[in-house]
């Protein structure tokens, strides 16, 4: 069996019809295996404890224990899991909270199935993935906000090198990988990261990724 080389995927959604639809789509791909299904957040967390999957696809609006809480718990216990939030909401509030919970992928339910497949492969490889529509909406929102508040775009404050580092960070590279790519020391990369957060007035990795999506640096 080539089962060991397949990507194991967990599907959590409270609607059985959505779960079976997703299973159908995923199992058409030979390198994907639906390892488990869950009907709510608690079941998803328990299922991951029993038989861990590399990628967890979580719906947000599930009864009791929702997808965002589930994402946070799964990542606390299995930090290397690639979590994709599958949602019908393209609003920034949802995206930001999904990112804060540690999700690396955000896919709209209305999007084409190819997007979900691409998202699974991206997060399994340690990168981020956002539905193009989400990215587009967040960019528009960002532009509107800047225009409305009349503030200058903080992106202009970044140096060329800092922009390079930012791009590599949001693409999912570790400090070590970035250092190798740019011929810098790991220490220098860390300093760049700190300065970037300070200049952009951001507080952590989740904010940074949301920022990148807004700036159109991803997807």
């Amino acid at each position, binding site marked *: 069996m080539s089962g060991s080389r397949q990507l194991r995927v967990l599907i959590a959604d409270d609607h059985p019809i959505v779960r079976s639809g997703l299973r159908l789509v995923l199992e058409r791909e030979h390198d994907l295996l639906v390892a488990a299904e869950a009907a709510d957040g608690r079941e998803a967390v328990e299922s991951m404890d029993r038989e861990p999957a590399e990628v967890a696809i979580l719906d947000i609006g599930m009864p009791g224990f929702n997808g965002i809480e589930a994402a946070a718990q799964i990542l606390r216990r299995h930090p290397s899991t690639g979590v994709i939030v599958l949602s019908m909401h393209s609003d920034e*509030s949802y995206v930001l909270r999904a990112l804060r919970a540690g999700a690396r992928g955000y896919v709209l339910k209305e999007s084409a199935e190819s997007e979900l497949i691409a998202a699974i492969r991206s997060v399994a490889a340690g990168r981020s993935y956002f539905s193009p529509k989400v990215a587009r909406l967040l960019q528009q929102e960002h532009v509107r906000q800047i225009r409305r508040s009349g503030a200058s775009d903080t992106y202009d404050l970044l140096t060329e090198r800092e922009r390079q580092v930012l791009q590599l960070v949001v693409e999912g590279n570790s400090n070590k990988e970035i250092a190798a790519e740019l011929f810098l020391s790991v220490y220098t990369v860390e300093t760049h990261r700190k300065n970037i957060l300070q200049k952009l007035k951001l507080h952590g990795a989740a904010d940074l990724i949301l920022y990148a999506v807004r700036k159109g640096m991803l997807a």
Partner: protein
Amino acid sequence: MESKIRVLLSWSLGGLVLLAAVAGIAALAIFERVRAGEHQLRATVLDRTRQLERIRGGVYVSGLLAESYFNAADTDTLERLHAFKQDTMQAAAEYGDPNLRGEVIAWWRLIDFMADLSTARNKRGLDAYFHGQIDERRKTVLRISAETTSALARESERGEADIGALYGRSRTMLGGAIVLVVVLGAAAAIVTARRLARLENDARALSAQLLRAQEQERRAIARELHDDVGQMLSGLLLEPSNVRRVSEIAERAIDSVRRLALALRPSMLDDLGLVAALEWQAREVGNRAGLEVEVEAAESAGELPEAQRICIFRVAQEALRNCARHARATHVHVALDRAAARVSLRVEDDGKGFQPARSKGLGLLGMEERVAQLGGRLRIDSHPGRGTTLIAELPV
């Protein structure tokens, strides 16, 4: 309906006050009559006491006189005996008690008899010393007896006057109290009736507004469902084989349904919590009205029970709507603050302001109602030209 209740309430409260007044006045009248009766009684008793004293004194003194006349018969003593006889007989007649009168008559028969006897015997004169002694003692006894009697009467009269003054003071106090009760009662009745009428007006206006709003909302939803979602789904039926067209239409239909659902109740409130929902609402209003809306809230501040969460969200929604519609503001600041046992929402704008006491819209009444239902307080601080600050505080 409304005026009927007001009239009923006014009459019943007014009647109550009137009743209190009548009862008070009646109490005063009874008081007065009792006092008059008591006075009369005391006067009668005093009068009778005096008559008795007259008889008693007369009998006593005449006894002494008779004794002395028996020893030394002189015309002076006899004359005085006669005066006493007249006086005591008159007092006994006035007093009216037949026994007493009979005794007095019997007494004077005895005295008269003794006096006759002494004149007939014409006894030898007593010795001067003895005579003088009797005379002295008799005078003393008489003086003391008279003094005692008049002192008694004076004392009694003084007591009477004291009681009268006390009665007077009590009457004044009681009268004052009644007047006070009547005035306060009337004032309370007026205030209550007015307040009730206003509350009733507010409640009716609010419920009418709610009904209207509900109907409008239903109409809007029905229209959107029919015109938008219905048309799109019909479109699906027309070209079921065109896969690209079908997925395009389905996408649009999903969008419409989501928009509708969000307008009814933002899913963030359930999925992501209060703070996320406030941020979303702020962005929505900001985009629609071209406002800069800033939300300042720790994620944990929004961790509230369902009822409080919805209340805060709806109040913030209405406040932001007001900012967009009426305030002509450019900046709005929304802050959610959580202390140990309460949560407070503050919405502050830099718009044109208004006079909350004068022009309180139905939106504000609705907010007040929501907050009051959870035992909270809504404060609005606004002056024309100086922006508006709304603070809603709820116990948690």
